């Protein structure tokens, strides 16, 4: 089974995937695919280097499948790591403040309906978490947040960028 490498970013804990260009991405779709166990283990060694360089913590190998709609994690735990909580957890006001606009009246409901259908993982390729796109919202770091972060950790991003491009 195909594999990717995942970890949490040190500074904010956000889930990231080792990308094809040696950088870390928040999107599973950007992850580098390791077809075999041996290749994944080699990839993990590289990722562990990035852990030593304080970019990420706890890198692990994650099993994935690929179909027409792209990569998806095999286990429920990794699906949830990849796509965020399966519940409509954001207070509406917060989503609104982020400029995402108020959700349609029944979106929470739809979200939950989709969850109900989540079914057994490991069974037939399923429509897992299909209506969870609202969850991606936490992945986009706003400019303001990034600025605040830079103020707090002077030099951190420069190091990350340098490390990523090296």
């Amino acid at each position, binding site marked *: 089974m195909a594999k990717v490498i995942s970890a949490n970013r040190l500074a904010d804990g956000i889930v990231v995937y080792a990308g094809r260009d040696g950088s870390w991405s928040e999107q599973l779709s950007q992850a580098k695919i390791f077809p075999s166990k041996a290749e994944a283990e080699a990839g993990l060694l590289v990722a562990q280097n990035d852990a030593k360089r304080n970019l990420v913590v706890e890198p692990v190998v994650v099993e994935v499948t690929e179909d027409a709609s792209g990569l998806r994690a095999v286990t429920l*735990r990794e699906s949830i790591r990849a796509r965020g909580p399966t*519940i409509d957890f*954001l*207070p509406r006001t917060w989503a609104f403040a982020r400029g995402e606009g108020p959700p349609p009246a029944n979106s929470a409901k739809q979200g939950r309906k989709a969850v109900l259908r989540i079914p057994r993982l490991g*069974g037939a390729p399923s429509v897992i978490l299909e209506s969870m796109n609202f969850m991606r919202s936490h992945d986009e770091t706003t400019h303001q947040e990034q600025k605040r972060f830079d103020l707090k950790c002077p030099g951190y991003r420069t190091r990350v960028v340098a490390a990523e491009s090296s």
Partner: protein
Amino acid sequence: MYRYDEFDKSFVAERVAQFRDQVARRLSGELDEEQFRPLRLMNGVYLQLHAYMLRIAIPYGTLSSRQLRKLAFIARRYDKGYGHFTTRQNIQFNWPALADCPDILNELAEVEMHAIQTSGNCIRNVTADQFAGAAADEIEDPRPYAEILRQWSSLHPEYSFLPRKFKIAVNGAAKDRAAIRVHDIGYQIVKNAEGEVGFAVYVGGGQGRTPLIAHKIRDFLPKADLLAYTNAIMRIYNLEGRRDNKFKARIKILLHEKGADAIRAEVESEFADQRDEALTLPQEEIDRIRVYFAPPALPARAASSIALARRKDSDPAFARFVSQNVVAHKTPSYGIVTISLKPIGGIPGDASAESMEKVADLAERFSQDEVRVSHEQNLVLPHVALTDLPEVFDRLASQGLATANTGLVTDIIACPGLDYCGLATARSIPIAQRISERFGEGARAQEIGELKINISGCINACGHHHVGHIGILGLEKAGSEAYQITLGGSADETCSVGAITGRSFSSDEIVDAIETVVGTYLKFRVGSAEDFLAAYRRIGMAPFKEALYGRE
């Protein structure tokens, strides 16, 4: 309310400064993850599935409006606009950046809060009955003693590296609202034959993978000996608690293995040996702390009014709220209002920044500036004049906070589960939401009456499933979520651990299975006065098993 003195203030400020330095050293690479992990955990910072999680202590569940507003501010400024109240009177933020945590702790210190000892093998946040200092049935307010224990145990050098975590709860009324029998130590305030007030001491309760009910090891402990006796228990545990196996390291296992009588003898002997030491509490010290928790000077109010009576008669929703969410206060013209954080289909224990601010406003205006957090993951306005109830209800209703379901089937305790937690094996929240939607807020839930459903997403039992009247434990079975049902658990003074019904149910089946259990109860109960737990205790498991599994 307790206010920090100079010592508390500088102590917390010092810890924030230390942690700021530690985080800076981690981000710069001076500390690696292995070195840093214990340091962050000591400050309540966990790494969960999607992000860091910060757990903040709310000692004995008491908050001022100012503190709650600060939590709302933190939710908005540093998180995603909400927080999650836990089963141990803590609040968790699910999305803080590590780099922001020192600033968050600094904000908390401004309102006399912190995250110290919300993790690690130390004495954790000391919890108490959420109605403390207000309930009509109370013997004495448990919070001064919880505060004394908190001060004594904070960064106690001897007890900072215990075999495992250690949880203490104090309850002040005959009705146990603090689940003391499932704590490592439970102190129950009692009055002895001479009319003196002291504590009955329960030791060795706990949930997790080995649920055990605490043993009473002493009928009456004088108040002055609270610390000396706790110290004796801690010494025995620290020496003899198992450090070889994490799963057998809690004091409940020690009690189970050696027997309550043996532990009682050891504790009593240790206690006798050190009785003259400096740990005996002087009355002045108890009085000094008690002053902080003195009952507020409640203005004299009428016990009822024409407007209140009319509203109850004409508005069934209001009448239901009063009968379900309001309980008797020490002062007859006042009531204690529970604000349910369990809206139908909602996430148990989650509160948005707006809700927190709204509740803070209400507390300031109608409840002597006080809010409580219950281990059932609800908020409480402890001192509300009965004649203010219509206005309080209207204001809560306008924010979607007036769900009248306290103690009902939809007042579900649930841990964060696999939606957030790195330890979880299955999701809890979606199950809670579906059950809540199934039963709703109408006549049906009323008809079912008092029924506590508790859901945990793994064997660690943060969702207290062992002591739910109906407990649900989420497991992973061959790559799928599976849910085991237990029946007959209870966390109150009649504490019992639920029994497993049989094979587990899939995510698709579980809500129907719960409905079957509830239906079986309704079929067998002797009138609506017999609640679920009473009926289960009378008829036992067999009818439920039959209904769930037939003759399979």
